[in-house]
């Protein structure tokens, strides 16, 4: 099985979010970048396939050179090789078009991505990619088994889950459950040393126009301070929720 794992390079979850250049650019100053948490679940699942039933695992990112440490980290976790499509990622559709090209050229059968990235929260790249290359698609995947070319997957639905049968070739939008958090891999020293020698291939993008573009950013309006209510006076809370906030 040839597996491709899509890796998004995102600010660490605790990062303070700021904007520069008149609120038109994300301020990367002092921000630590990590593998997108949803992609990390998918990457770990890929490692299981590799170890338990044999597979090669390639990781891919569409981004400029600053994303390479994130790809190296994925190699240190155990991916065999990495591809960076040398393009600033600004729009879901154009990123999906680059990834489609990578899949076509590499002959992958299984593409594992995350449900969404935690920076732009688009939740669109895996689905768009599946359509562009005409692979089957399961989003919000919380369990995945592959037997030959037959696939059983479970996806989250509102208030429960749904078991699906499908087949390779397939694109997955993964999340927690596809592996558990305690099973996520942390790169060890040997992995880090080996990652330095693994191939990280830079490819140039194909022509693909952006469908959307961000013109500016905003921060949420500052919040007023909390109204504190005495623990012995829950009646006041009920009154405020009913008459002031009008939510009960």
């Amino acid at each position, binding site marked *: 099985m040839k597996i491709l794992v899509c890796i998004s390079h995102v600010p660490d*979850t*605790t990062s303070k*979010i700021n*904007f520069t250049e008149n609120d038109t650019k994300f301020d990367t100053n002092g921000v630590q970048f990590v593998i997108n*948490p949803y992609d990390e679940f998918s990457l770990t699942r890929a490692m299981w396939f590799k170890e338990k039933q044999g597979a090669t695992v390639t990781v891919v990112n569409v981004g400029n050179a600053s994303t390479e440490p994130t790809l190296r980290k994925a190699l240190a976790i155990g991916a065999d090789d990495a591809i960076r499509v040398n393009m600033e990622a600004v729009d879901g*559709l154009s990123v*999906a078009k680059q990834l489609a090209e990578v899949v076509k050229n590499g002959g992958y059968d299984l593409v594992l991505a995350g449900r969404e990235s*935690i*920076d*732009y*929260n*688009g*939740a*669109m*790249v*895996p*689905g*768009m990619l*599946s*359509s562009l290359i005409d692979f*089957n*698609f*399961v*989003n*919000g995947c*919380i369990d995945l088994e592959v037997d030959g070319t037959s696939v059983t997957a479970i*996806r*989250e*639905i*509102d*208030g*429960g*889950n749904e*078991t*699906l*049968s*499908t087949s390779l070739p397939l694109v997955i939008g993964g999340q*927690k459950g596809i592996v558990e*958090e305690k099973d996520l891999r942390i790169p060890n020293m040997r992995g880090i040393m080996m990652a330095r020698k693994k191939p990280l291939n830079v490819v140039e993008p194909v022509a693909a126009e952006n*469908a*959307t*573009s961000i*013109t500016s*950013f905003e*921060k*949420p309006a500052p919040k*007023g301070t909390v109204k*504190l*209510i*005495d*623990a012995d006076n*829950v*009646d006041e*809370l*009920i009154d*405020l929720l*009913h008459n002031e*906030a009008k*939510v*009960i």
Partner: protein
Amino acid sequence: MSVLVFADSTEGKFKKSAFEVVSYGKKVAEQLGSNVVVVTIDANSTEELYTYGAEKVVSVKNDSLSIFNAKEYASVLKQVADAEGSSVIVLGSSIDVLHVAPLLAVALDAGYASNVVALPSSTSPFTVKRKAFSNKGFSNTVISTDKKIIGVAKNSYGVHENAVSGTTETFEASIAESGVKSEKIDKVTGQVTIADAEIVVSAGRGLKGPENWGMIEELADVLGAATACSKPVSDLGWRPHGEHVGQTGKPVASNLYIAIGISGAIQHLAGINASKVKVVINTDPEAPFFKAADYGIVGDAFEVVPKLIEKLKAFKQA
């Protein structure tokens, strides 16, 4: 050049978010000086939609559509959009819609903006405001393609009545070959789901153990709320994974979020920032949640919650 709205339903009944997207689509049609067409798939009856401004409803029914399938639904929506000559397609943000929207975007060669929180600030260039950075910011996004798809974030625009005398037509769609087949659906029935709940009662590690969740369930019951929890609580197996909210769990966009014994770590807040009114109950006055909340009680959950249940019962009866 119509605006097409997909009114999402489950087991034949509309989700509340369906009325929100119809309200939204109606306004976008006004902004563009065009008309709104609402499409339903396997919905029992469409009349409710007229209340929110649906002048024309296109109803698609077919036995094979009774269970959601992303590829089939995308193909049906494309057929209706083509037949109606729709240039703007308005969708919601349910799990199913998030599954189908990217497929539809490729099928229509449309730019897709998800997580949209307000009406377009301009229709030329077509500009929408979207949530980004897990609710820590917004991006103003221009959609530059001829066809445009807007995914409206849950509870961001609200439900607005705008009654019209609408009409419903049926539409015969051809069903796409789908490579994904539903084998089994497991649903917790009889409970309010986090995604659709107006009120969510959530508890954290401060509750000490799963045996103490009785009062959380009772409080939720009195309020007609869904129950939720912080991540360590589901990791410890005190509560099911489906209840974990936050950055790596479920997003909550309820009207009221009550957080009991939850510290308010940034990853938890990322998932609940979109809730309108937040209440925190915590013994520690320094808990970060007090900075994010609208109302707070510094106190022990084991004392405050039973009192709150008792008083709420009296309030509901009054």
